[in-house]
């Protein structure tokens, strides 16, 4: 009999070729999947592999996605994308998704993530893969080059912090609100580079995309991985994505008597929409506490906040409403698949008819790499994961974070408001033209 283990320990043990491992041990693990994007990928790892004089250990286990510098807005971005494409071809990389959307969304959509996998990603939001029962974490480019050269990586087996959410979220409250509340409660280092495992009846009821948001923002809690034990909801997603599921999914869950570092329990029913004020996701609180903040830009984008389900949340608010004058609403669907499905079910038309401006599927303004960045002193509310100073453009810009509901409601009102007041269709008389404050005008008056 092996002693009781957490889900994280079971996943690491399999990758390390051991019957069992326990938190604190230093182990070397075999990597099942290595994911890279155009920023931290080929342009950074190629020179290192050349210096080492070695090739990629297993091109079938590598996925490359272009999402940061796409589509090229200048010659340097074009050069990076060209280099990426050439390297992928030269190294016979098996899986390449060129301008199909953001890696954390595109990779599971194409069935690359399955319960039991041990994966590394060249991006800090790689814990998103934990929603599928994968042990997946972010690494820098030198570390990635080491993985590509050897197929291995060392790690300290993480302890598990169990976070339980029980009950039902109220309408207009989403996984993003859960994560902002957790950032405020636990802090940006509350995860302490350990494993966070989400559980509880609210998690059990959550669709895959909401689970992805929870695991994605485990990064904001400073965790190495965010994990959710796979279940029937996971299996359904995997089937649609064409991912083979062999064996018993029930293996991939924490043993009831496994040792955890901490257990936090929250009530989903009482959670109000959350907004994080500049310049930290941990600077979050109930939307009711945000007092008359007018906005210049509303941004629905990123792996965190522009999946199909996120676009549908925004559409639920924008249906029959208009973006306020003087406000711009930018929408960058997280993937081409999300875009196509939103087009097919009418979600996209709802957004654009309300006045949303559609951006290419990619990282765009989230990290300030692409289009949609902010001018000095501008105010934005975004469905992204981070609002660090200067991240989305000018250092004096102020970025608030909220759920897609809350971002869409701000676009209609012209200021940050509780989105729950916008979930019913508007009275016919208010169908045209936003009823909100016009922030540019208000700013002019303030001056």
């Amino acid at each position, binding site marked *: 009999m092996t002693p009781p283990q957490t889900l994280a320990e079971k996943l690491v043990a399999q990758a390390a070729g051991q019957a069992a491992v326990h938190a604190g041990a230093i182990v070397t693990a075999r990597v099942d999947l290595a994911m890279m994007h155009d920023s931290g990928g080929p342009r950074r790892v190629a020179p290192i592999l050349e210096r080492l004089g070695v090739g990629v250990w297993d091109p079938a286990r590598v996925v490359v996605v272009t999402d940061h510098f796409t589509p090229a807005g200048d010659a340097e971005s074009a050069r990076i994308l060209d280099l990426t494409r050439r390297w992928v071809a030269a190294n016979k990389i098996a899986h390449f998704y060129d301008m199909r959307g953001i890696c954390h969304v595109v990779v599971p959509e194409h069935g690359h993530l399955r319960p039991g996998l041990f994966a590394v990603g060249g991006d800090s939001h790689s814990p998103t893969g934990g929603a599928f029962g994968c042990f997946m974490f972010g*690494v*820098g480019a030198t570390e990635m*080059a*080491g993985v590509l050269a050897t197929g291995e990586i060392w790690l300290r087996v993480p302890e598990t912090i169990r976070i339980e959410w029980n009950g039902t979220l109220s309408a207009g409250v989403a996984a993003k609100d859960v994560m902002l509340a957790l950032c405020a409660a636990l802090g940006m280092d509350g995860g302490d580079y350990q494993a966070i495992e989400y559980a509880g009846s609210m998690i059990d009821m959550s669709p895959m995309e909401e689970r992805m948001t929870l695991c994605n923002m485990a990064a904001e809690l400073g965790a190495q991985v965010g994990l959710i034990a796979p279940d029937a909801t996971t299996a359904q997603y995997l089937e649609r994505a064409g991912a083979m599921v062999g064996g018993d999914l029930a293996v991939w869950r924490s043993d009831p008597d496994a040792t955890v570092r901490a257990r936090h329990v929250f009530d989903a029913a009482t959670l109000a929409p959350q907004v994080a004020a500049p310049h930290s996701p941990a600077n979050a609180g109930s939307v009711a506490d945000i007092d008359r903040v007018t906005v210049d830009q509303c941004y629905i984008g990123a792996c965190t906040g522009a999946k199909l389900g996120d676009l549908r949340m925004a559409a639920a608010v924008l249906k029959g409403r208009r973006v306020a004058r003087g406000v711009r609403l930018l929408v960058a669907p997280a993937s081409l698949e999300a875009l196509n499905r939103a087009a097919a079910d009418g979600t996209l038309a709802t957004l654009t008819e309300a006045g949303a401006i559609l951006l290419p599927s990619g990282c765009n303004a989230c*990290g300030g*790499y692409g289009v949609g960045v902010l001018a000095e002193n501008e105010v934005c509310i975004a469905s992204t994961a981070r609002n660090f100073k*200067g991240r989305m453009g000018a250092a004096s810009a102020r970025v608030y974070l909220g759920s897609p509901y809350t971002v869409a409601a701000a676009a209609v009102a012209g200021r940050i408001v509780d989105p729950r007041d916008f979930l019913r269709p508007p009275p016919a008389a208010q169908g045209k033209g936003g009823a909100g404050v016009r922030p540019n005008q208000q700013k002019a008056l303030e001056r």
Partner: protein
Amino acid sequence: MSGRAFVFGDNVDTDVLAPGAYMKGGIDELARHCLDALDPAFATSVAPGDFVIGGRNFGMGSSREQAAQALKHLGVAAVIATSFAGIFYRNALNLGLAALVSAEARKVYAGDRLEVDAEAGTIRNVTRGETLACQALPPHLMTLVAAGGLVPYLERKFKHA
């Protein structure tokens, strides 16, 4: 190692260390904007051998290793903080930038002269006549740092293979 201290607070993030707007260019340009948003004079006033001091969770955010590379490029000899974000910590050591955990990092003030022995894990504040407690690196990481980072370490490994 001996140099001056540049002191920052908690949660210094990778976007201020390596701003996204300069990520497509080379390390020269990126390093010129390192910590711009917190101290516009940092990149021009820091000199080879100086130290960056942080509070909790230094290097939180992105996995971009340019956050550590920019500091190394500017000649920063070591980052000393109360705690580090996991990915930044690995990146720093992989690139051969010493990252030292000291619970007493807050006792260092801007401009203090420090003497640091990264291998031994000792920090002496010459200006204040204090010695700060510092965690020594675990053996498996000491091997990495002693080799000069992950690439030289692997270079040797492949040569011997």
